[in-house]
């Protein structure tokens, strides 16, 4: 079911994006410098500046409207030179924050002017893009499913009606041809079934079918008990891996740094989120308001984006719902697989070079709007991989002696984790 809704969602989304983009292009032809300025702003300034509010640096729209453009260009190019030259306005401005602004000598005057033009104009209002459409696009999937069902029902009804009509017409034609229609014996449905059940062969066949289907259903059900592939709980923050890992191409390690050092991959603490979300507030999507999801980060930290201060008394940790639940008695170490076994796992799972090794078990995280459990995480699943994967121990001196010993005993056999004792109980269960 999810797959259908995902597909529908994606179709709707691309259609929506297309319209939005075309609107943007239409509007952008009218103000070339603003669009370029917007791009430059996003690339260079947005990590510290917001248009309409102070962040690390001051709010740019009011500031740049008030400033003389020529001076502003000089400031942006190299504010330090201005300060050193003793420009009073510059000295005053440099006191805004202890954090020093980066100088941009590589930007051309024209580019800086574009930025200023963009900043003065503010975020262009795009036609039809108000928060409600976003909400509507969320609701689309349910609607479309209902629509499809309705269409199917209607077409069935149409088919039935058409069938009746054809029968009537046939009868009319036959009557006209003078054929006497022998009315079929009007045997009631119930007596028909009763008759069927008197047929011993049918009864036997029926019971056999019932047993086989129930049995196989039960068998499958048993095997999948406790297997939660596809488990996708509702998280306290609607965090999109699709956006972060897919669109924005943020490396997995940036947030899950533990995976490369420790047994835990670690859910990032909020200070990691704040590295970007101090300035990335997605206000453009929420009519100048901070995104409600990003606001959740701020609330948890007791952070006030206006004053940029933390209130420790209001801090409250975020309770994520664990998606990947290994049984308590299974010891799994991320670093063993992500660092030591990386190459072997890549080869075995056929990952593309640009895909992180994490995808081997966690699936295409870069396309997951909300994260779900991709692999079954059963012991069979672990063991199969340990049996099939050929170790890649090149350049790891740890394995030299072990491989040598292994070769002596089982010459030429594939060296898998299983061959080196990876299937022994105590290796994972202690």
């Amino acid at each position, binding site marked *: 079911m999810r797959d259908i809704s995902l597909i529908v969602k994606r179709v709707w989304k691309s259609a929506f994006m297309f319209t939005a983009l075309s609107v943007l292009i239409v509007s952008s032809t009218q103000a070339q410098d603003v669009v370029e300025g917007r791009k430059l702003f996003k690339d260079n300034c947005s990590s510290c500046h917001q248009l309409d509010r102070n962040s690390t640096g001051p709010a740019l729209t009011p500031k740049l409207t008030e400033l003389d453009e020529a001076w502003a260009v000089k400031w942006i190019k190299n504010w330090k030179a201005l300060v050193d030259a003793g420009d009073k306005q510059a000295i005053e401005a440099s006191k805004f924050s202890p954090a020093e602004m980066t100088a941009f000598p590589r930007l051309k005057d024209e580019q800086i002017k574009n930025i200023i033009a963009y900043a003065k104009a503010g975020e262009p209002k795009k036609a039809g893009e108000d928060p409600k459409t976003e909400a509507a696009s969320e609701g689309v999937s349910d609607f479309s499913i209902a629509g499809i069902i309705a269409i199917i029902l209607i077409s069935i009804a149409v088919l039935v009606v058409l069938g009746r009509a054809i029968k009537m017409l046939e009868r009319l034609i036959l009557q006209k041809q003078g054929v006497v229609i022998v009315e079929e014996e009007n045997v009631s449905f119930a007596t028909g079934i009763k008759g069927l059940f008197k047929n011993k062969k049918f009864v036997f066949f029926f019971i056999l079918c019932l047993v086989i289907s129930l049995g196989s259903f039960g068998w499958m059900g048993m095997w999948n*008990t406790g297997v*939660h592939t596809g*488990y996708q*709980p509702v998280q306290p923050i609607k965090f999109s891996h699709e956006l972060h890992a897919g669109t924005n191409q943020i490396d997995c390690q940036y947030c899950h*740094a*533990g995976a490369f*050092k*420790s*047994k*835990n991959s*670690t*859910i*990032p*603490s*909020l*200070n*990691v989120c704040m590295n970007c979300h101090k300035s990335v507030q997605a206000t453009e999507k929420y009519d100048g308001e901070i995104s409600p999801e990003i606001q959740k980060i701020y609330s*948890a*930290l007791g952070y006030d984006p206006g004053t940029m201060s933390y209130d420790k008394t209001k*801090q409250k*940790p*975020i*309770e*994520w*719902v*664990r998606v990947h*639940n290994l*049984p*308590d*008695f299974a*010891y799994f*170490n991320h*670093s*063993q697989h992500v*660092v*030591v076994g990386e190459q072997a796992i890549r080869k075995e799972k056929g990952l593309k070079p640009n895909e992180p090794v994490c995808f081997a078990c966690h699936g295409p995280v870069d396309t997951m709007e909300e994260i779900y*459990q991709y692999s079954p995480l059963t012991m069979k699943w672990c063991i199969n991989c340990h049996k099939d994967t050929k170790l890649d121990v090149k*350049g*790891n*001196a*740890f*394995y*030299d*002696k*072990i491989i040598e*010993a*292994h070769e*002596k*005993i089982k010459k030429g056999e594939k060296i898998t984790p299983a061959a*080196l*004792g990876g299937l*022994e*109980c*105590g*290796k994972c*269960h*202690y």
Partner: protein
Amino acid sequence: MESNKKYWKGLEEYKNTPDFVENNKNEFAEPLPIEDVLNEAGLSTVTPRRDFLKALGFGLGAVTLAACQTAPVHKSIPYLIKPEEVVPGIPNYYVSSYNGQSILVKTREGRPIKIEPNPNAGAFNCGTDAQAQASVLDLYDVSKLKSPQLKSGNSLTESNWSKIDAFVKGELNKAQASGKKIRIVSSSVNSPSTKAVVADFISAYPNTKHVQYDPISYTGIIKANENSFGKAVVPKYNFDKAELVVSFSADFLGTWISGEEFTSQYIANRDYKSLAKGKMSRHFQFEAGMSLTGTNADTRVPVKLSEEGPALLALYNAVTGNSLAGASLPNNTTADKVIKLLGKELLQNKGKSLVVCGSNDVSTQILVNAINSAIGSYGTTIDLDNPSKRYAGNDAEFAELLNEMNRGEVAAVFFLDTNPAYDITNTKSFTDGLAKVALKVSFADRSDETASLCDVIAINHNYLESWGDANAYEGYYSIVQPTINPVFNSRQAEESLLIWSDNPVKEYYTYVRNNWEKNILPALGKEWKDVLQTGVFAAAAKPAGAYTFSQSLTAVIPTIISNSKALAKDIELQVYESIPMRNGKHANNAFLQELPDPVSKVTWDNYIALAPKFAEKLGFKEFDIVSITDDKYTIELPVLIQPGQAQGTASIALGYGRNKAGKAGDNVGKNAFPFVSFTNGTFKYATTVKLTGTGKREELAQTQTHHSFEGRNIIREATFKEYKKNPAIGSGNDHAKHKSYDMWDKYEKPGNNWVMAIDLNACTGCGSCIVACNVENNIPVVGKEEVRKRREMHWIRIDRYYSFNVEGGEDEGAHGSGHGTHGSTGINAVTKEKEIAHLDNLDNVSVVHQPMLCQHCDHAPCETVCPVLATVHSSDGLNHMAYNRCVGTRYCANNCPYKVRRFNWFNYWNDSRFDNYLNNEFTQLVLNPDVTTRSRGVMEKCSMCIQRIQGGKLQAKMEKRPLKDGDIKMACQEACSANAIIFGDGNDPNSEVSKALRSERIYYVLEEINVQPGIGYMTKIRNTDTTVQA
């Protein structure tokens, strides 16, 4: 979920009336109507069948529904702001120190979970004792107070620091103005910063005096050294330089001054490395009760407490050629004989021998000084110039404090790390005096015996939450640094004193740092951050001067003789510090309560130890409860029959009988401190008592009984003399072995082969490995009742075996019929129970301690009988145990020849019946997250710290380097002061363990049954010499 309540069917069960007990013997309360059911009418009734089907249908449906649950919702809560140094899943280590031992504290996600010795400590890295290992549990003690307490009306109530500060300062000013005395009472303080804080406090309130006393006092040694050499110190003893050690009731491998350090020094002359060089020290022990040190002695001579003085005098005469009066031992010819020979031997080993004495009597210690001077110990085995600073208590000052308090001269008193309402001889005088003090402040972390009598409990941090330092020896400094934020609303005692004395520096961290940067670091040429990294600094030791005893002994001899005569009047009682409980400070530590006494193997109790023959003479049997009375105090304790105990003496361990320690420690055993007496200016730990039977009986919770030898050749030993001729003597390696047959194929171990070697000559039996294993592997504490049922869960135990030194075959029955005697070793050990029964002299026993843990047999008998393959072999030589496969048939335990498999009878960590340990979320923070907690109904055993093996291997893989010998250490091995446990890869011929396993002394326990154990033991070697041996 286990029941968290106690249920009972009726009052009779609750009260356990005799009727109930009688009825309870029947399986069913009423006769079952079996006849009724089986008659025709019963069988033809319709309802039972239909009810059965209904129940079956409902049950099946319910079970199916229950199984159809969706994925479990587990919350995963990351840090809000992660500290930079923390990576979840990876431990951090911090250097610190515990009781003068330099340690590493392992923390996971900010929680201290394990104590390990600090490898930076160099010569001072002596492993850790059981107390240090167990100390991490004290941090998570639920019996601690959560906030400071202030007296309001007649009771102590929760308060806050500002109220307490105002109250204490007000009272202090009143006290100062009235000119009355202010006293800070503490146990010995060696921390330079704490001393400085106290000094600052004294300058703010000049009426203050710092009184130090220790419940186990060393004042006798300090005063004697002051008297003899003008140095009021506990000297530094160098057991590593002593080739001949003579100890008079000093348990120097256990509790005396610093056991773990002396163990490491002592073993240096006795372990496999030393033996391989053909060197082994000799050790004589003269004592009344069987101490840990006594069990390790080459020759142990039981002497009565009253004979100790005369014996020392005799030894003095023997080494100096004098003939002081009173040196006769009319009733102990053995001791007399040994001492005469020993005198000669000491003179032969001049400068290489050491005499120590556990007495706290100044006169006795002066005599010991005279002996040591005569044998040239000063400057070699005894160092007075780099003295130990662990003990500085002054008994007389404390006694004077009691007088001052009772005279009403004291206006304010502070108790730091001390509990006089429990651990002094005359608690009544103390409590009476305390009532006359206006301001009584305790820095205890709980409302203990003393704190509950105070006006203020200014709860102190645990040492794992504190800043601090230690100065265990002259010139040797170590740091204490916090490894966790204070859990409760506590404040460090030093900080409280700084605040109350209006010190300009209020924060103790700054104070410690300033103190180090000003007074300690410049001399060492180091910086503060170096201290935080290495944890210890030792200045170059001063040259140890050779001191000569030149005082006259005429003043001391009459005291020694009169002490001896006073003791000889009645049954001589020795009260001593036991290895697990020490002075009782950590009585609430369940790990320590369940640590078996190394000799008696008793847990959760103290007892009165009597020699078998003496008990028989008095008419007591084992476990009879007897009443022990001196002129002012009476307690009732069960009797323990202790072979080796001197006739006419009894021993009781101190540290028990606390009643305000907490959940685990309250009312365990009886308090023996009131038997301590204060005479001639020091505390004396010997007195005379009368014993009377009470007719009651109570079984002690022992982990091992006396006679479990069953005649098997488990312990192999030889004498040093024989060893020098033939290193393989006694090990069974010097002659053809029993032919054995294999039923199984050989296991291939291509990669690593994890094996262990245990040096029986190094193991002293102290038990610190047991506690280390408990902490590392989340081993539950089961309590007294369960231990009685032999259900303790320890993965490693130390078996104590007695054997009997029989002189020249005078008793044919005792000599054994070749069964118990070990080939040609020459030691006549009696091992058969029926032979033991014939022995009439159980005084002269020798003891071997054998650490016993899963032997990781290659052909493990447990594996073949497991019906569910829950225990299987690995390709690196380990015997794995998969708890979740285990269905609890216990066949494996039955089939294990070493009896090392332990069964979980209960969910010990979640069952209200075991409410002294892990039954709360707070204490569960001590669990090692890398090791699972086992559920009820499964078997468990030593895993060879597989989490450490896997962790060590991964570390090497990540660093792309081969695994080095020593990368992986077992918890037991790390804790061992004696280096008796060697672990490593048997496939690496150069590893330490491979070298050790190639020793001629190696034998495998029960090797004749060919289970091919992975742990080799080295024969016990005793340096006994027939010319001197008793």
